């Protein structure tokens, strides 16, 4: 029983991690007033770039300690590049942010697959990364043969995700920068009249959002598995977006929502396992996370309020 619980917790952490990165990204973007529906695409390009660089780097330089980290960061930067595109469109050119986000959801995966074909002999997926070129597992072997191992023997990306939640919370609520980000998301004009550069803050937040989403993708392709393929992300960016809303636009809230989602998936897998032996259609089991999410939203969460200027392009000199 305890073992099963440990298993569910371990799965929770694993599933939640990519979502946490991506939803943190959404938190930054939306708190600065830029809706980011392009998270899905940014995750995809992050996952691809990380896996591809890890493979190529380890091929060229051999498996060195820095290879996975550099690849991980490249994944983030690739996401950040599309964040930049989104910022150019929606901040500088006052584009409809949904339109721009949707464009990114076509462009980023399209470009990833295209590059993959160029780099890997026409394949839309990367070869498997060598085990040691994946992100490290700091606790591997430290707590062997215990329940703790099932729960906590995770890839570094998992711990980093939680550190980032803490950091994001700190940045958003305890620093000057965070105050400005939130001010710009709530009332850009007020910020503008106080001499805050609304565009700069929004650029920063949206690019950061892309970087985080890219890292989320990378945490999938470099930790949970060891390669990129077109179906790797399939909808997780949207789930992350939902988690961000569910978490009321707050880092800690988004993390909670991601964990809930991971936990329900863990429970679903557990219920479908042979030792439970339930005779329920796998399709019905598969609905569990979504049903639970809705029920929780109905019962406990109540109305969430977006930042007042979320989704509205800001133009100087307009009332």
């Amino acid at each position, binding site marked *: 029983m305890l073992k099963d619980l440990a298993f569910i917790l371990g799965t929770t952490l694993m599933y939640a991690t990519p979502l946490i990165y991506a939803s943190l990204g959404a938190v930054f973007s939306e708190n600065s007033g830029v809706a980011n529906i392009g998270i899905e695409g940014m995750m995809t390009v992050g996952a691809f770039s990380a896996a591809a660089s890890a493979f190529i780097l380890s091929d060229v330089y051999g498996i060195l300690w820095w290879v996975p980290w550099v690849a991980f960061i490249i994944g983030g930067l690739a996401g950040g590049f599309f964040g930049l595109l989104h910022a150019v469109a929606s901040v500088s050119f006052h584009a409809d942010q949904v339109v721009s986000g949707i464009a990114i959801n076509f462009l980023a995966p399209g470009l990833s697959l295209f590059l993959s074909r160029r780099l890997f002999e026409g394949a839309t997926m990367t070869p498997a990364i060598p085990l040691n070129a994946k992100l490290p597992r700091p606790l591997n072997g430290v707590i062997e043969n215990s329940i703790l191992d099932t729960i906590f023997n995770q890839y570094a990306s998992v711990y980093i995700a939680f550190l980032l939640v803490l950091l994001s919370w700190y*940045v958003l609520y*305890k*620093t*000057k*920068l*965070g*105050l*400005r980000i*939130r*001010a710009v998301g*709530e*009332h850009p*004009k*007020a*910020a*503008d*009249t*106080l*001499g*805050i550069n609304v565009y700069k803050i929004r650029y920063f937040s949206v690019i950061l959002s892309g970087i985080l989403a890219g890292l989320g993708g990378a945490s999938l392709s470099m930790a949970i598995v060891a390669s990129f393929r077109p179906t790797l992300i399939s909808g997780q960016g949207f789930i992350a977006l939902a988690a961000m809303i569910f978490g009321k636009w707050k880092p800690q809230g988004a993390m909670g929502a991601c964990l809930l989602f991971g936990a329900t998936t863990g429970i679903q897998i557990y219920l479908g396992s042979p030792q439970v032996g339930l005779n329920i259609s796998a399709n019905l089991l598969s609905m569990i996370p979504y049903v639970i999410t809705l029920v929780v939203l109905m019962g406990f969460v109540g109305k969430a309020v977006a930042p*007042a200027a979320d989704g509205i392009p800001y133009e100087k*000199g307009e009332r």
Partner: protein
Amino acid sequence: MDAIKEHIDFQTVVVEMKNIVKKFGDFTANDHIDLKVHKGEIHALLGENGAGKSTLMNILYGLYMPTSGEIYIQGQKVDVKNPNVAIAHGIGMVHQHFMLVKPFTVAENIVLGMEPTGAFNKLNIKKAIEDVRALSEQYGLHVDPEAKIEDISVGMQQRVEILKALYRGAEILILDEPTAVLTPQEIRELIVIMKNLTSQGKSIIIITHKLKEIKACADYCTIIRRGKRIDTVDVSQTDENQLASMMVGREVSFAVEKGPVKPSDIVLKVEGLVVEDNRGYEVVKGLNLEVRAGEIVGIAGVDGNGQTELIEAITGLRKVKSGKVWINGVDITNRTPREIFEAGVSNIPEDRQKHGLVLDFTVAENMVLENYRKEPFSKGIRLNYDKIRSFAEELMEKFDVRPRNKELKARALSGGNQQKVIIAREVTNDPDLLIAAQPTRGLDVGAIEFVHRALVDQRDRNKAVLLVSFELDEIMNVSDRISVIYEGKIVGTVNAKETDENELGLMMAGGGR
């Protein structure tokens, strides 16, 4: 030297705007305007809605670039490219629509953009709070630095705005219609604050439509009409009538002319009404009220005593917790807004942009917001746009809504014209009961005259009118009877002709009659 001008240092011109022209497309909002402000002076800007006052001040603050003209601050020519330049030259502005971040605290709003920080970019919120506290002591602007903006009154928010400017070391303070949303008490306090500031050497430019305030606080007044500067006058040497006629270009009457009151049947009856606010506190606590056909009942009171909730409860926008409301003897308690409308209640809402208009609808569409389902505007589910348009055209003509374009989005109208659209619509409904909440907020004297006329016409046609206003003058001039609301109850009702400001003020402060 005149008593009110004791602080003015006539030697030092702090701001000089020369030959300012601002064009929006073909439209000239500012047409060669000159303005000169001295150290320690309170300088009023007066003009009709849309005269170009806010535009001029936005130029001074760097929000708009002038088409041509020069600006000198402390004698130095300055190119005010953006607010940062203005701030650096000691200019602070309190905008017509507050520039406050609602979920933030007072202190956070004040320090935003000039935050005290520690290591790692950490916001030193303790220092911010201390600074704000010290600043508010220094200028006698009392605020709670840790309160959230969304939880404090409008008057408080105004102080936060002023503190924001002072925190940035403002020497010249621009106040754009600061009193439009304040209660009389708050206005009095604001005037004290302004005097206090000028006594410390600050200069103030204030935009207001209220002539009484100009008389009460300003040293000089520049009058702008249709983008042109008409004159700058010594306030002590003029009176309100002169100011008004200079501004409008014709004589304006302040007294509301009306015949004797002839009340008949009870239209609105409220008994033991209890209503909660958004946060779940009871703010209307067993209120009783009656309004008869043919009379205007004014509700006087300080903001926050349950006025908003009272009206929302009567009109069905808010749930009644207990008590009853009747219209013409019919119980309408907790009915839907539509049912209550059908029962004969129309409402000029307090927040015109939130409740009164769909800003992205055209003026024509807004004109039928309650009646779109009725003939001739629709038949079955089909809307008859021809009828809607011609109806709108007719109303815009009658109520002088400008510009006279029914296809314009309501968003594109000025605040005053938006208000006219609402009034046109609500008055034309010809309701048995017309509720008017703060109907003249932010309007110029000409427009105010117009609104008051409309209310009195309604009464003269033997309809009931319930007027809620923070402006005592308005309440006393327009109403027949005045009920004073205090802490969610009517603490007394007096005949408008038999009372005065002092008596009402006392009741509004909780001293019953």
